């Protein structure tokens, strides 16, 4: 009797065991394949061909496919953007017309003071440097607060991409009077003086006390702004733009005068205000006031 029951269990379970084992092997194979088929691999294959087409046969031969990153623990930075954006260091050799993500980085005059291996990508461009997928790197996913400063984002703010990036230059250059390449924010800094903001506002310990301290205004959560009188998009940037243009409309009863600033000045000032954040960069990255054009000191 016992014998028969044993066999019935075997008959019942054996087919399932085989089926489950097959499913197991298929799933493990898929996991292995996904580990290999990363989004950056095809770009690396293409880049090898691009190098060969440009006549750099030796470099093409030496080019090894694999995960890449710029790592700088001083800035807590691991920028894996370069796993796809492979042409960034090849300006002058590869054509600037090469489509993204292989395009070489433009050779801007201040780039010599800001080498890639120290500053990475996200220091200026924001985005999620940890990510190895285009979406993860550019949008950052839910809850990511530093999306890449893209052309689209710049267009939605009616400024240029370069102007958006100047906001991040100012993380280190906030004490400069004027900095090469930061035209828009240089203008904003002059406006702060010309419009005498410090009569009421305190910025870095200097100024009056009748208006809010703006030293770390850029850290303020966008949800802390009152958008009930804002007509444009609900962004901290736009709140500042409208507030600088017509303070009485955005904050009824405010003591702040209506400056009626022209739009480009209001936007530049808003970017300057948003750049005022509590950033903990090591001191060797912060230029001395007025010494904007000098290179950050080597340690």
């Amino acid at each position, binding site marked *: *009797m*016992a014998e028969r*029951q*044993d066999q019935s*269990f*075997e008959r019942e*379970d054996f087919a*399932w*065991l085989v089926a*489950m*084992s097959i*499913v*197991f092997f298929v*799933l*493990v194979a*898929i*996991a292995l394949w*996904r*580990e290999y088929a990363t989004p950056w691999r095809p770009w690396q294959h293409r880049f090898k061909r691009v190098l060969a087409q440009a006549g750099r046969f030796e470099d093409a031969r030496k080019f090894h496919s694999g*995960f890449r*990153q710029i790592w700088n623990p001083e800035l*807590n930075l*691991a920028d*894996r953007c370069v796993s796809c954006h492979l042409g960034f260091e090849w300006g002058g050799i590869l054509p600037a017309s090469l489509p993204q993500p292989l395009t070489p980085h433009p050779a801007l005059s201040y780039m010599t003071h800001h080498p890639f291996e120290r500053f990475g990508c996200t220091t200026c461009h924001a985005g*999620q440097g*940890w*990510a*190895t*997928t285009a979406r*993860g790197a550019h949008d*950052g*996913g*839910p*809850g*990511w*607060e530093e*999306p890449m*400063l893209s052309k689209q*984002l710049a267009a*939605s*703010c009616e400024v240029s991409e370069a102007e*958006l990036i100047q906001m991040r230059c100012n993380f280190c250059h906030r004490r400069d009077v004027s900095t090469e390449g930061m035209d828009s924010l240089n203008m904003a800094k002059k406006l702060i003086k010309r419009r005498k903001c410090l009569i009421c506002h305190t910025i870095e310990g200097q100024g009056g006390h009748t208006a809010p301290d703006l030293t770390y205004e850029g*850290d303020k*959560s*966008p*949800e802390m*702004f009152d*958008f009930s009188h804002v007509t444009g998009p*609900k*962004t*901290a*940037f736009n*709140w500042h733009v409208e507030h600088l243009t017509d303070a009485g409309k955005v904050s009824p009863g405010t003591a702040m005068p209506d400056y009626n600033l022209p739009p480009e000045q209001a936007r530049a000032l808003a970017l300057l205000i*948003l750049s005022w954040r509590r950033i903990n960069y090591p001191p060797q990255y912060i230029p001395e006031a007025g010494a904007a054009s000098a290179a950050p000191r080597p340690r």
Partner: protein
Amino acid sequence: MATDLQRVWRKLTWPWSPLSEREASEAIVRNLWLHWFPAKVSGRSLSWSYSLWLGTAAASLFVILTVTGVMLMFFYVPSTERAYGSIKDLQYAVSFGRVLRNQHRWSAEGMVALVFIHMARVFFTGAYRGSRVLNWLVGIALLLGTLMLSFTGYLLPWDQLAYWAITVGTNIASSAPLLGWTVQYLLLGGHFVGQQTLLRFYVLHVFFLPAVVWMLFAYHMWRVRKDGGLAAIEAVRAERRAEPKPMPRSKSYSLFGLTPGTSVAVMSSMGLEERDQVASSPNLTRRMILVFLAVFNVTLLLSLLFNAPLEGPANPAVTPNPAKAPWYFVWLQELVSSTTIHLGSFTISGGLIGGILVPGVLLAALILWPFFDRSPASAEGVWFARTRTRQNAVFTIISIGIIILIIVGLYLRGPYWHLYWPWSRRPVLPQVL
């Protein structure tokens, strides 16, 4: 040639077909890993339809969690500065890191669900009676252990969700009478959420709680055996005892044979007959492997399809809107928020009612239930026994209530914790740029 092939095939397929009862029993007794099982098990206990193998499935998840968890420990750094980055590294840079973390996450959520469903099964089959009361209590401790493991694990990525879940959770703990503040202070390792908190939750998650749950689980399994197997056999056992047994024929028994019933020689220790039982090896072990494989496949499939959520890095200055607890705690959050009363400028926090009293009463009810169960013994080990209809109805209603609260909290609560239909438009929250 044919015999060679047969031998190779046998080596590859590794068949296990014991030639005798003794060989089958020894396979269990002699094996360190298997010998917490009985050598023989009732066919009724092995059936799919009675137990649904939920406990085995939950245990399989716990095994998967232990293995994936240990692997994750090689990469995770329990520091407020590095924790979030190490999770991002797992997601993007570590080989198989993403699938590993996904599997750990989905197995954890599955374990909470399965442990609860397993408890519901035990309740609906009235399997907590008699000597099994102790195992019911151990089971409740295991449910609490699972929930605490989930909660402590939830915090380790140190993202916004983690940070604010600790804040909400420990604030609820602090609303407990008398000991509230002490408990909060103990959990946080201070007055604020910080490095000490992360370290405490980490040690609880990777050492203390798993050790407790492993020990309780081992005891839980051992108790099943000591209680004679699953409650499903109680009906068979009663039947067998009532069956008139044939008179033993041997001469030496003739004197005793005058009394009805069975003698030592013909009655097995479980009150079951030979025909009710099968050898544990390979019948029980095969099915266990099958359940484990099925559970593993489901979690791996989920891990390949869906990524474990991860929000922005923890930011004490910005609360996510809305800040939601994980689904298995969101019903408590919903209770806390709906029992919070605003009277003018006064607010009476629902932390005590929703966070302490209601779950406390539910827990007490679970613990005391077997001692007040007055249903007849015939209800033991039977699905939805008629004599237990009222009890089952109470359990079902409370469970449905909790599920409704979970659905409301999870899908209907939007920004500012307002109620929205899933299809209605929710306000767009302001952004920086």
